């Protein structure tokens, strides 16, 4: 009898983690949809940063083709950085983050949901628009698709790592600049593998290894980052 009860408890805990994840994803997506203008600004930031580069270095096709992958990836990193405070800042300011942390459902699951919603509302549109910008830089169609694929795999990792930094800097005066200092060094491997995938394809080596490494980074970050972010949120709320 007791055994059955314990098992029942286990089962509800598992489903409660998943339900918590789904609930918090849907909640944050709904909130994101209510501030669509803000999301559009994030996407425009990406487009504008990318547009600045030809103006700065000149519009020679060969040069732009050489710089393109790097520029598009660096701009994606900056756009991700710009949107990171969205994950926790408003919830922290109005106290709902505290209620979320008090919930019986596991905090890492709830935070994973917030990160997923953040990626769907910022990283995903960025990845989808990137082939268009790649064409502006004279990248071939295949290179454009590879860029989009790399961003699809890479930007969730950026959101996951960034969530740790966003949680650590919650409520601090020097939020924005500090967040950049904390997070950009951690983004370096993603940038290298992401931009490197296109270089590898150009060199005739195939982008497989880079995409595999990006996927590996994503899987590791999916396991570790929500735990670290949850710890950081609890520290910020203390």
């Amino acid at each position, binding site marked *: 009898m007791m055994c059955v009860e314990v098992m029942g408890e286990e089962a509800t805990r598992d489903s409660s983690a998943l339900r918590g994840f789904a609930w918090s994803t849907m909640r944050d997506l709904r909130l994101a949809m209510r501030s669509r203008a803000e999301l559009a600004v994030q996407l425009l930031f990406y487009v504008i940063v990318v547009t600045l580069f030809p103006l700065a270095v000149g519009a020679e096709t060969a040069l732009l083709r050489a710089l393109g992958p790097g520029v598009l990836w660096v701009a994606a990193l900056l756009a991700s950085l710009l949107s990171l405070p969205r994950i926790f800042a408003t919830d922290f300011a109005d106290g709902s983050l505290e209620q979320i942390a008090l919930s019986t459902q596991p905090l890492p699951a709830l935070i994973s949901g917030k990160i997923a919603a953040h990626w769907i509302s910022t990283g995903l549109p960025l990845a989808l628009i990137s082939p268009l910008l790649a064409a502006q830089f004279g990248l071939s169609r295949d290179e454009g698709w590879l860029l989009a694929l790399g961003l699809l795999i890479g930007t969730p990792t950026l959101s996951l790592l960034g969530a740790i930094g966003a949680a650590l*800097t919650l409520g601090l005066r020097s939020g924005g600049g*500090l967040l950049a*200092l*904390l997070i*950009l*060094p951690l983004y*370096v*491997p993603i940038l*290298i593998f992401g931009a490197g995938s296109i270089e590898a394809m150009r060199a005739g080596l195939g982008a497989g290894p880079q995409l595999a490494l990006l996927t590996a980074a994503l899987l590791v970050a999916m396991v*570790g980052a929500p735990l670290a972010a949850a710890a950081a949120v609890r520290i910020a709320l203390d």
Partner: protein
Amino acid sequence: MRPMSAIAWFKLASPASFFPLARRLVPWFGAAAAVLTAAGLWIGLIVAPTDAQQGDAYRIIFIHVPAAWMSMFIYVVMAFWCAVSLTFNTRLAAMLAQALAPTGAMFTFLALVTGALWGKPAWGTYWAWDARMTSELILLFLYFGYMALRNAIDDPRRADRASAVLALVGVVNVPIIYFSVKWWNTLHQGASVSLTSAPTMAVTMLTGMLVMAFAAWFYAIAITLLRVQAIIAEREKNTSWIGEMVPRTR
């Protein structure tokens, strides 16, 4: 703090009992560092032969290599104390991590500067974007990030725990960053000392380098113990015992 006096070595985890110990140890480690530095420099600058290819310019390795080793070693030690401080919720471990960070950053900076100065005669350029230089630069950013996060948080206990999380995330990332940068580009010469193959350098050079490495290590211990005393004195300034140990100057 929770009472932990039941276990003997936890006694030292209390700032009040660690402070006098640190004070007693500093002169010993400082003296050892001074003697080893003198010996290491004597071996490195006078005894060691001039290199056939690089002339006397190579002698900078007696600073460069120990500094580079210490820069990475101190980050790992710092992360270790951060893990201890998060696990056992001890203040002293967090203070030690806080005291280690500036020394680690200093060694990282020293490794970069001496590397650049050595790079000019050896490769003809101060800076090349090769794997080890780039990851060393990123390590410097990680140290700066750690210190900046600490400084941005007013409450010392929150600063302890937040920066500990950051250091642990950083230490997981250091090897990933290193290998990613390495695959990205490598024109650095292979490692000068490796455990798997016979050393390619003269025995005197190796001796000089190891002596200098121990000198840097003892220096780091001495300066960290000195700095941790200042941190303890600052954070415990409202306790009665600190007034007995540090006489007021005014």
